[in-house]
Structure formats: structure tokens, C-alpha cells
């Protein structure tokens, strides 16, 4: 067996996010679809957690409930023990399709959140400048999103929630629409940002390699109805080397967990 161990429940600190007995059903006319069933999850401060699973496993739904864009049908979803009732600046979402404001420049997109708090202009410029520097877009301050590449847009999206003082970064397949080279670069940059800011990150992906490269913990979800199947802690040392034996062993283990459920479903 590789460096995978079942997550021990030894955390004495209050978790940043805690989800218990979460259920989510959608009603479409007469039919109801159960998207999530009895989901329990607890995320500690500074953890990098990947939610992984095939499409339809509810991983994005879970993320959107954490963001406050959707509500739970039953169960509790708390941040520092307080129920999440809607979107808020402390939970910053990074969408796969960026969702930047196309009429604002890079600088103004990043300053959008702070601007809502009516900070003075000088402070806004300072914040935007700081985060543009962090994501390496200082030279593109006056560009509009339409003039940027996909990778640059996603950098703006990350800087936008960082500038708004988010504590939890919720990322919904953020690099899924990017080419391989850009994706690798952004993964490295995200790790650097994470190490620098010690943010808590929940990262949805369907790429096993990405999950193993990035996270402290991989939460494996399965469909029909969506639920958490495995919750594994990775003990691989950082920085991780994707060609190392340990890395590949871990990747193989997680792939097996994912595919065993897919095969079971196919056989059923």
C-alpha cells in the first residue's frame, strides 16, 4: 500500500467548514432527483481538499452549496459553526468559465469586491496592485478580460477573490478549460499562492493526477445518488514529483477507487 491512510479524526481545532447529513434533491415537475445523499465532510483551516468523481457525482453541487449559491434540502452546512445561508466574501468561488466582468479592466475586476466595501480609491489601487503582482498580471492592469488568454483570465478570477479577503477558496474545475501547459503552470502558481496565504482550498476536479499533485486530502465521490465514497489523506512530501514511484502509486490507488465504483454501476 502507498501513502494513503484513512483520515484520522484527531482535529481539536474548530473546522472551517463542516457538512453533516447533507441531502440535496432537485424537483423537476413530477420527478425528483437526488443529487447528494448523507454527505459528511469537515475541512480544517489551511487544508487543500480535492473533491473528485465522475460527472453527476454531485461534487459541483456540493461546492455550490458551500458557496451559498444553492441551499441544502436537509442537513447542516456550517462555517466556523455558523450556518451558511448565502454567498459571502469569506468564501470565494473560482468558476471554470471565469465569470469575470467583461466591461471592467483587470484592475477593476480585482478591485470589484473591495469596491463594494466603499474603500478609498488609493486603497483599492493598492489592493489591486498587490494581487495583480501576486498572479503576475501587473502589465495587463488596463486590459479587458476579452483581451486575455484563458489562463490569464483564471489568474484574474483568483486574484479577485483573494483581494476580497476570502478565507476559503472554492474552485470548480478551474483549470478544466485550459491547455495542458497553461494548466501545469497555474497548478504550480496556485500551490505557491496557497503556501503564501495558507488559505483553505476546496478544489473540484475529475483529473486524478491534478488531485494527487495538489491536495492534502482527496475526497472521492460517486454518483447515483451523489455521496462521499472515500476520504483519503495524502502524505506525499511536497513539492511533489509526478514521475516518482510514490506519486504514481497514489494515483493508481485513487484511480482504482474511482473506477471500481464506475464498474459496479455498469454491472448493475
Amino acid at each position, binding site marked *: 500500500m502507498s501513502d494513503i491512510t484513512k483520515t484520522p479524526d484527531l482535529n481539536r481545532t474548530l473546522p472551517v467548514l463542516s457538512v453533516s447529513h447533507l441531502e440535496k434533491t432537485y424537483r423537476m415537475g413530477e420527478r425528483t432527483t437526488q443529487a447528494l445523499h448523507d454527505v459528511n465532510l469537515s475541512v480544517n483551516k489551511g487544508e487543500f481538499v480535492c473533491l473528485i468523481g465522475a460527472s453527476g457525482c454531485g461534487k459541483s453541487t456540493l461546492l455550490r452549496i458551500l458557496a451559498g*449559491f444553492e441551499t441544502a434540502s436537509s442537513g447542516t452546512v456550517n462555517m466556523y459553526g455558523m450556518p451558511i445561508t448565502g*454567498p*459571502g466574501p469569506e468564501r470565494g468561488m473560482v468558476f471554470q468559465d471565469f465569470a469575470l466582468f467583461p*466591461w471592467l479592466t483587470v484592475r477593476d475586476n480585482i478591485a*470589484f*469586491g473591495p469596491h463594494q466595501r466603499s474603500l478609498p480609491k488609493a486603497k483599492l489601487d493598492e489592493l489591486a496592485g498587490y494581487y495583480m503582482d501576486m498572479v503576475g498580471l501587473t502589465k495587463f492592469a488596463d486590459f479587458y*478580460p476579452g483581451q486575455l488568454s484563458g489562463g490569464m483570465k483564471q489568474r484574474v478570477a483568483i486574484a479577485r477573490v483573494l483581494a476580497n479577503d476570502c478565507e476559503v477558496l472554492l474552485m470548480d474545475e478551474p483549470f478544466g478549460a485550459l491547455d495542458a501547459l497553461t494548466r501545469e503552470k497555474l497548478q504550480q502558481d496556485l500551490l505557491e499562492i496557497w503556501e503564501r496565504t495558507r488559505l483553505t482550498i476546496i478544489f473540484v476536479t475529475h483529473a486524478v493526477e491534478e488531485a494527487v499533485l495538489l491536495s492534502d486530502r482527496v475526497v472521492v465521490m460517486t454518483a447515483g445518488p451523489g455521496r462521499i465514497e472515500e476520504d483519503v489523506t495524502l502524505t506525499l512530501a511536497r513539492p511533489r514529483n509526478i514521475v516518482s514511484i510514490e506519486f504514481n502509486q497514489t494515483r493508481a490507488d485513487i484511480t482504482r477507487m474511482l473506477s471500481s465504483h464506475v464498474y459496479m454501476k455498469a454491472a448493475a
Partner: protein
Amino acid sequence: MKAASPRWQQVLTAVALPLILIAGWHVGVRITGTRLIPVPWDVGLMLYDFAFGGIYDDAYSKSLHIHLWKSFTRVYAGFFAAALVGIPLGLLIGRIKAIREFVDPTLQLLRPVPVTAWLPLSMIFFGIGPNAAIFLVFLGAFYPIVFNTTFGVRSVDARLFEAAAMLGCKGPSLFRQVVLPASLPSILNGLRLGHGFAWILIVVGEMTGVQQGLGATIMDGRMLSRSELVIAGMLVIGVAGFATDRVLVMLNNRLLQWSPQHRV
């Protein structure tokens, strides 16, 4: 992409067709020997006299500026009123379900009624005079403005609202900071369409009940069997509509700098 041809070449290409049409017009009148349609040269003389006088010295000599100004003020009174009502109403219809359900069916029911069919009622409501014409212009510009604004709001990517909510933008500032700019391309499109209709309807509106204005001039030309006056009036309206549309295009391109696909 092909390299753009030189400027003079573009201009030459653009004026070629009008020149051919004018030549065809001249030849057509000469061949048929009609008295009902003047040759282009006569229209040119009429236009000169209409603007500067000194040729015919009749009621229409040197009166272009008066008629143009009258029509111009009516067009923009109606157009700005339509924008002032249409844009906020469109934003509300697009964004607030209760208002949409209350107002939209009525608008959809009224829309198929040709605006020109409102002329008799308009004259009853607003009396014989310029206000009836302004009302027609208002109505003609209002529909495209309100419907395009609504469409613009409805087609804003839902993700943008989520992003805004997550960043702490809600309530009235959401309208100003997200709804309005996101639907601006459609709003400007509606304004441009409405502006075109405004210049069309001013002619209909001025055909009865007013003494001055380009529509009234065209109608007088018909009564007096002065086709050259009719055509001169048509040309002035065409040029005025075109020139003011260019202003709107400039405004459009300036406000939509961020969106290359919406630049005209």
C-alpha cells in the same frame, strides 16, 4: 484576415452605386419623357434653393434649416422620452419577475399594432400639432428600446450575478454595477433601432397637422405636384438620419470598448 484596402479605394467603392443609380435615374426620366419625376439636376437645384435660396425665391427657398430644426427637435423629444422610459422599464421587466408578469403581456399585445395606426388617436389625445408627431416618434422608438433592454438583461450570464453576490454586491448597486453594464450592448442596439424608427415616424407624424418640418414639406410637395421638393425632403431626412446614426455608432464603440464583438 485580408489587409484593408486604402481609404480612397473604399470611398470610391462606396460612392460607385449611388452614382450609377443617379445616372440610371437621369437616363430613365429622359427616355420615358415623364413629367412626374424630375431629373437629378432639378432636384439638386431644388435642394440648393431649399437650403440657400436665390433660385426660385418661393415659400420654400432658404427654409431648410427651419424644417430640419423642427423635425430634429421632435425626433429627439420623442426619442429621449422613449429612452428615459424604455431603458429603466426594460431593466425592471428583465430583472424582476413580478413586474415582467404584470407588464410584459400587455406590451406584447400592443406591439403588433403598427405605430402609424396610432396617428388618429394620437391627434385626439394630443391635438392637431407637433405633440401628436412626438408621441408617434416616442412609441416607435419605445418598443425596440424596451424589448432590447429586457432581452439584454435576460441574457446576462447567471454566473455574473453569482460572482457579484459572492463579492458583496447586492440590491440597487447590483443594477448599476452589473445589470446595466452587462446589458449595455443590447441597450445600445435597441437605442440604434429605436433611433432609426424615430426618423421614419417623424415623417408620418408631420404629414398632418403641422406647417413646418420635413414631413410637412414632403406632404406639401405632393399636394403642389413638386416632386423635386418631395425628393429633396427625402434626401435631407436620409442624410440627417445617417449622420445622427453615426453619432450613435461612435457612442456605441466608445461605451463598448471592452467588447470587440459589439463594435460596429
